[in-house]
C-alpha cells in the first residue's frame, strides 16, 4: 500500500471538537453548581416556611455544624477523586478526638491538635499501605481498619469518655471570629487549602489522573503507589483535624462517637458532585454539600419534623439530588426513542 500525505493548508477543523461548544454541558454544570442550587433552594423554602430559620444565631449554628463532617469530607474528596474510598474515617475520628481531648487535658491545645492530626495520619498511612502496597481493595482494607480502630479505641479508653472543658481548647469548637464560628473558618481554610492542592500542585493533578485511569497514570509517569498512600494520609490528617475540632466542640470525646460518620462523609462528597468512580469533582461542591446537610438537619428540627420522618426526608433529598442527572438523561433518551417510534409505529417489526 502506498502511503499518502495531505496538503497541510487544506485540513478542515476536526468536526468532533466544534460540535460540543454551542450545546450546554448539563452534566458538567450540574456537577459544578447543582449542590449550591439545591442548598439555596432549601434556604429559600426554609426562610419562607419557618421564620426561626433566618436569624444570625441559627446561621452560625448551621455553619458550625457543617464543619465537623466538612473537614473530613475535604480529605475524602481527595480519596474519591482518586477513585478510592475510606470507610475508616468514623473510627479514626473517634480515636483522634479522644486523643485530642486527653492530650489537651495534660499538655495544652497545640499538642492536642498535633496528636489528633498525627493519629489520623498514621491510620491513613496504614490504610494507604494496605491499598497501595499489599493491594487490598480500598473498600475491604478500610472496612478492616474500621473494625480494628474501633476495637482499639474501646480497648485504649476502656469504654470511657474523656472530658476537658479548658477554655483555650473549647474555643476551637465553640467560639466565633468576626461572627463566623471557628470550626467553620477552619473548614473553609481546609477547603481552600484542599482546592489549592487539587488544582495548583502536581499531587492534585496526580490524584485526578489516577482517578481517571490508574493504568494510564502509571504509564504517564505518575507515582501511583506513593500518591495513593499520600491520599489516604491526607484523609487521615483532615479527619484528625476535624476530630479535634469536634472534641473541642463537645468538650469531650470517646469511643462510639458519631455512628455512621463515614457514610455521612461519603454522602457529602458525592452529593457535592464528586463522581464516586473517581476522576471528577471539586471542593466547592463538597463545601456546598456539607452546608446542605447541616441546613437540612437544622430546618427539619426547626420545622418540628418528627425524628422518624427526618430520616426519610434526609435519605430522600440525597437520592433526589443524585437522580437529577439520571432523570434528565432518561428523559432525553425517552424523547429520542419516542421520536424514532412515531413515524413507524403502525409498521410491524
Amino acid at each position, binding site marked *: 500500500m502506498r502511503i499518502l500525505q495531505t496538503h497541510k493548508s487544506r485540513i478542515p477543523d476536526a468536526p468532533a471538537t466544534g460540535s460540543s461548544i454551542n450545546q450546554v454541558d448539563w452534566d458538567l454544570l450540574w456537577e459544578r453548581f447543582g449542590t449550591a442550587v439545591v442548598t439555596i433552594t432549601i434556604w429559600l423554602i426554609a426562610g419562607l416556611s419557618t421564620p426561626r430559620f433566618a436569624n444570625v444565631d441559627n446561621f452560625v449554628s448551621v455553619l458550625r455544624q457543617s464543619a465537623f463532617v466538612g473537614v473530613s469530607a475535604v480529605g475524602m474528596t481527595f480519596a474519591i477523586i482518586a477513585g478510592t474510598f475510606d470507610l475508616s474515617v468514623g473510627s479514626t475520628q473517634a480515636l483522634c478526638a479522644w486523643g485530642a481531648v486527653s492530650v489537651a487535658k495534660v499538655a495544652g491545645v497545640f499538642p492536642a491538635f498535633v496528636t489528633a492530626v498525627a493519629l489520623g495520619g498514621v491510620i491513613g498511612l496504614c490504610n494507604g499501605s494496605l491499598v497501595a502496597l*499489599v493491594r487490598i*481493595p480500598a473498600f*475491604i482494607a478500610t472496612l478492616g481498619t474500621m473494625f*480494628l480502630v474501633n476495637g482499639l479505641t474501646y*480497648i485504649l479508653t476502656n469504654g470511657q469518655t474523656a472530658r476537658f472543658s479548658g477554655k483555650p481548647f473549647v474555643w476551637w469548637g465553640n467560639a466565633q471570629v468576626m461572627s463566623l464560628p471557628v470550626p467553620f473558618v477552619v473548614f473553609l481554610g481546609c477547603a481552600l487549602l484542599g482546592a489549592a492542592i487539587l488544582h495548583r500542585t502536581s499531587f492534585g493533578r496526580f490524584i485526578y489522573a489516577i482517578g481517571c485511569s490508574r493504568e494510564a497514570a502509571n504509564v504517564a509517569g505518575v507515582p501511583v503507589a506513593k500518591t495513593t498512600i499520600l491520599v489516604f494520609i491526607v484523609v487521615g490528617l483532615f479527619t484528625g483535624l476535624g476530630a479535634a475540632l469536634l472534641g473541642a466542640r463537645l468538650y469531650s470525646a470517646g469511643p462510639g462517637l458519631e455512628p455512621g460518620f463515614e457514610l455521612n462523609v461519603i*454522602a457529602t462528597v*458525592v452529593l457535592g458532585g464528586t463522581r464516586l468512580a473517581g476522576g471528577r469533582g471539586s471542593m466547592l461542591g463538597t463545601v456546598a454539600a456539607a452546608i446542605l446537610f447541616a441546613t437540612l438537619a437544622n430546618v427539619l428540627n426547626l420545622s418540628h419534623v418528627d425524628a422518624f420522618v427526618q430520616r426519610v426526608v434526609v435519605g430522600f433529598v*440525597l*437520592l433526589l439530588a443524585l*437522580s437529577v442527572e439520571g432523570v434528565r438523561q432518561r428523559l432525553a433518551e425517552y424523547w429520542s426513542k419516542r421520536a424514532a417510534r412515531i413515524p413507524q409505529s403502525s409498521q410491524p417489526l
Partner: protein
Amino acid sequence: MNARKPRRHRVASSQVGLMLLMVAGVFAVLSPRFLTPGNLLNVCTSASVVAIVGLGMTLAIASGNFDLSVGSTAAFAGCVTVSLVQQIGVALAILAGLATGAAVGLINGLIVTELGVPAFIATLGMLTIVRGAALIYTGGRDIYLYGQTQYKILSSGLTPVLLALALAFVLWFVLQHTRFGRHILATGSNAMSARRVGVRTSLVLLGVFSIVGATAALSGLILSAQVLTGNGRLATGLELSAIAVVVLGGTPLTGGQASIAGTLQGSVLVAVINNGLNLLNVSIFYQNVTLGLLLLGTIALEALRTDRRRTKQLTTR
C-alpha cells in the same frame, strides 16, 4: 454425560475455610464448652442470620453492586410481619414480610437502573429512608407476640440453619445453572458488554435487588422470631456484617464472580469468633479488633498470592 463446567475461582474460599479451621481449633483447645452440640447449634444459628442476608449480598456483589440498606430492610420486614401475625396468620404474615423486603429491593433496583444513581449511594439513601419507614410504621414502639408459638418455628431448633443451607443451595443452583444466574455474572463481569449481547441488565438487576431485599427480610424475620418482637431498631449495622462475610468468603468486589460456599464459611467464621470470645469471657472490645484483623489478614494473604502470580504482568513499581 460429561458436561464440563467452567472453572471457577475457588482459591479464596479455601483460604477462609483454613482460617475457620484454625480459629475453631484454637477455641476448642481454650474452651471445653466450645465443641458441645448445644454450642455448635448456637454458633450455626447466629451464623445463619448473617449468612442468609450475606447470600443475597453475594448475588448483589456478583452483579457488580452493593446493598447497604439490608439492615433497615430486615427491620422493616420484621415489623410488618410481627404486626400482621395476629390478623392474617403466621404463613401469610411471613409472606407479607418477604414481599415487603422484595419490594424495598425492587425500589433499590429501580433507583439504580432507572435513575442512574450508583448502588452504593442509592442504597445508602434507602438505608435511612427505610429505617425511618420502619420507625414510622411501628410508631417507634415494640410489637410483641408472646405466646405466639407458631411464629417461633422460624427461629427455633435447626430451622435457621436449614433455611440458610436451603437458600445457599437454591442460590448456588440459580447462579450456576439457570440463565438468570449466568446473566447475573455476565452483568457483573461487564455490564456494557452484557447489554450489547442482549442481556437485559436492568431486569437482571431488578431481580437481584429484589432477591437481596427478600433475603434481608428473611434475616429480619428470624431475628424478630428469636425475640418475638418487632421494632424499628432491629438489625442495625447488619449491612456491614453482611458485606464482611461476603468479602471474607472470597467473592471479589469487582463483580462477575461469586462464592456461595465462601459466604457460608465466612459467616460461620464470624459467628465462631464472637461466640468463642464470649465463651472465654473476653470483652466485646476485642471482637471488632479480631474481625478487623481477620478481614485484613485473609484478604492480604489472597492479595499477596495473586500478586506473585501477577509479577509477570504490568506492575506499578
